[in-house]
């Protein structure tokens, strides 16, 4: 093609093996200057591994990496950064107790005669954030920010150095629509500046919104590369999952309405200082209730109160019609409530423990420490659950940290399926999960709902909310502002409720 931009990053024949797993085999990949290149594939396809190979976290077993015509063999991420490849990894790895400024400048602080020049560091951090149109108090600790903003800080950190290639591994999974738009604007701006950007995501809308080209991986192999404008959506999904995408569509579930009998859980004006105020809600058996709202609107906080991770300071909390005074996670689990937390890495997984142990830990905690489940039974049960949820690879004795991000999420869902809770709180359960698995989880939810189990479903993806929920609680500014039920639930009505000016 004439006028084609020059290639800046070229990977040839990349292979990477882990004990028992071939993560990548003979993968070619090329990135041009000034393009946004989407890297797509199912959970465990090898996207993160490919990125880690090109950024020096792993050394490839086979193949070569060329940057601007020069061959490199990065041994450390720092070497890749020096050569001009900046990366935001899938799992945000910043230091929560340090300030925002320190996180952005860590390892490259300006040093003067009297140690670190803090004013310089702060000024640089402010500038880096300004590039993302963000204004934050850079002296505040990182942990004071929502995950979304932490993600933006991670991006700002990567942008701080003069990069030629920017790699973003699922950067948008915790951002809301507005923040995603902001990020895309930044990406487009950087593209104009001639940067090559690699972008991993499971949101297909986003793929079409910004990318120029698309590379698809499946089972560690490259399936092909397309111009985004020439690859229809259905075709893309089929290429990713390796079978006809139409099958998935038929699995989508229509929402049925059930008249609610006595509610399982009731909140009467429940509040907690600094988190939520006066929340009313009723969840009946067999009901899926969605929580919609912007990030920081109090959805996760409400979920934490229901699970006993936080305690209320006002209002009434009733379970099966009985008032609950003191509540904690253990009591919640014993009364049949479960939580899949939003921050999987911090609050969910035990990285060093095996997939089997990760799946069965709640089941075992519920049985008590004396009644240990025998090993053969554990293997059988965890194996069956891992298979049901499609955890891949299915070797349940490996530490969970070696699973890809989306597969870790599936294992956490399996953990709750093991105890069959009466009410399962799902806080962004589909984050980082590929299209196929999303449908599977949604159909699992609706199947279990028919058996009388209830769910709370927090998601920033309104399509999912509309498809699965019988009622939707719309939250804004830490208050529940509206409950939509049955036919009232449409994407438009939810957006309206969120955006309505508080009167």
């Amino acid at each position, binding site marked *: 093609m004439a006028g084609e931009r020059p290639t800046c990053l070229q990977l040839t024949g990349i292979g990477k093996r882990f004990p028992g797993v071939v993560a990548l085999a003979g993968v070619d990949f090329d990135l041009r200057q000034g393009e946004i290149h989407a890297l797509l594939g199912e959970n465990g396809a090898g996207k993160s591994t490919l990125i880690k190979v090109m950024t020096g976290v792993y050394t490839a077993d086979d193949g070569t990496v060329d940057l601007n015509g020069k061959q490199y063999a990065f041994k450390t991420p720092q070497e890749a950064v020096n050569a001009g490849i900046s990366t935001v990894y899938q799992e945000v790895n910043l230091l929560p107790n340090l300030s925002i400024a320190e996180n952005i400048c860590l390892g490259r602080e300006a040093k003067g005669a009297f140690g670190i020049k803090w004013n310089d560091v702060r000024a640089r951090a402010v500038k880096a954030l300004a590039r993302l149109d963000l204004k934050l108090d850079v002296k505040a600790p990182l942990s004071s920010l929502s995950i979304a903003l932490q993600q933006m800080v991670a991006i700002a950190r990567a942008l701080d150095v003069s990069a030629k290639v920017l790699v973003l591994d699922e950067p948008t999974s915790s951002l809301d629509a507005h923040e995603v738009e902001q990020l895309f604007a930044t990406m487009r701006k950087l593209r104009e500046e001639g940067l090559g950007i690699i972008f991993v995501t499971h949101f297909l809308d986003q793929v079409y919104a910004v990318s120029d080209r698309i590379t698809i991986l499946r089972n560690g192999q490259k399936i092909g590369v397309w111009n985004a404008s020439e690859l229809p959506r259905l075709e893309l999904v089929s290429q990713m999952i390796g079978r006809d995408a139409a099958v998935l569509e038929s699995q989508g579930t229509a929402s049925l309405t059930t008249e609610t009998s006595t509610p399982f859980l009731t909140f009467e004006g429940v509040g907690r200082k600094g988190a939520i105020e006066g929340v009313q809600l009723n969840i009946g058996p067999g009901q899926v209730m969605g929580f919609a709202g912007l990030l920081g609107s109090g959805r996760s906080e409400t979920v934490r109160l229901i699970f006993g991770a936080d305690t209320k300071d006002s209002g009434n909390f009733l379970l099966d019609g009985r008032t609950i005074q003191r509540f904690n996670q253990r009591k919640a689990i014993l009364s049949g409530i479960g939580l899949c937390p939003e921050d999987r890495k911090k609050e969910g997984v035990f990285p060093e423990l095996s997939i089997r142990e990760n799946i069965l830990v709640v089941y075992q905690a519920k049985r008590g420490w*004396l009644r240990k489940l025998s090993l053969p039974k554990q293997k059988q049960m965890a194996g069956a659950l891992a298979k049901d949820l499609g955890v891949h690879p299915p070797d349940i004795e490996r530490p969970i940290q070696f699973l890809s991000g989306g597969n870790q999420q599936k294992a956490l869902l399996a953990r709750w399926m093991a105890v069959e809770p009466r009410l399962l709180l799902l806080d962004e359960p589909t984050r980082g999960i590929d299209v196929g698995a999303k449908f599977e989880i949604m159909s699992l939810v609706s199947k279990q709902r028919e058996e009388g189990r209830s769910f709370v479903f927090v998601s920033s993806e309104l399509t999912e909310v509309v498809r699965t929920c019988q009622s939707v609680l719309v939250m804004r500014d830490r208050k529940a502002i509206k409950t939509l039920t049955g036919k009232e639930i449409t994407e438009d009505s939810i957006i309206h409720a969120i955006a309505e000016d508080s009167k």
Partner: protein
Amino acid sequence: MKKLPPWGWAVIVLLLVLLFNLVKTPGFFEFHVRDGRIYGSLIDILNRATPVLLLSLGMTLVIATGGVDLSVGAVMAMTGATAACLIAQPTNSPLSSINVHQSIPQIIVISLFVALLCGTFNGMLVSWLGLQPIVATLLLMVAGRGIAQLLSNGQIITFQFPAFQAIGNGGTLGLPNPMWIGVIVACLFGLLVRGTALGLFVSAVGSNPIAAKNSGINPGRVKMVAYVLTALCAGIAGIIGTADIQAADATNAGLNLELDAILAVSVGGTFSNSGRFSIFGSVVGAILMQTLTTTILTRGVSADATLIIKAIVVVTVCLLQSPEFRNLFSKLGSFVPKKSGGVA
């Protein structure tokens, strides 16, 4: 290549030290039978390893939950003093009001009760008050010896009580009693940890305390159990020590043994907050520590050098356990033509 278990390196190094002795120390692997007891360097090592072995059993769980217990040596001194005072009934001891009429079960139960109190105290400081384990247990490490002094009224208490002494220096079926006690307690520990879900809960709390809470585990309670078990083990070690020398010395009993126990645990492949621990590894670690000591002493090296050599071995094993270090090492050796392995 199959991955080496966490205790693999400790076993390898232990075998190397034994091999060294096979070649260099004549008579190291010999056994003699005298008065119905078996004697020999190996038996001696296992016998002497018992106190550290007992301490390291409990310490394994404490370290696995992200803590450390510095007070074990002091707890040994306290239980030892308690037992000695109950037997010798010295005047002016606060314990002299309790007369157990030389009933060994009662002596043991009361002494272990003291240990239990210590463990509960540590556990409360760590899990309820949220103190740093190092600080919390330092408290009892320092104050514990003072309490032991108080119990024994500032004297070294000696006694003559053959039936009790047998716990420390008698033998059963030809083998020394402390060794039997070590073996039995280690087996009970293994059973407790693997036969119940306690092991899983300890791993979970060590790996990610927040996730453990969200899974219905009470991290405070798990930590409490770990500190109580550790103190009980220290109590048993303290009783053996007192019985062995027929005396209680509040200042020196179990001195510095907390360090040996921590080293034994690390050598055995258990690390703080790694979510992985190995009771077997700690047993091997404790035996390795004692084998080193005995080897060095039989070779006539001065006792001061013992510490240095021990330190070198501990550091080496810990380095070998770290994948980063092994990578560095294999890179240094990469001029050796590498065979490209097939798919594992």
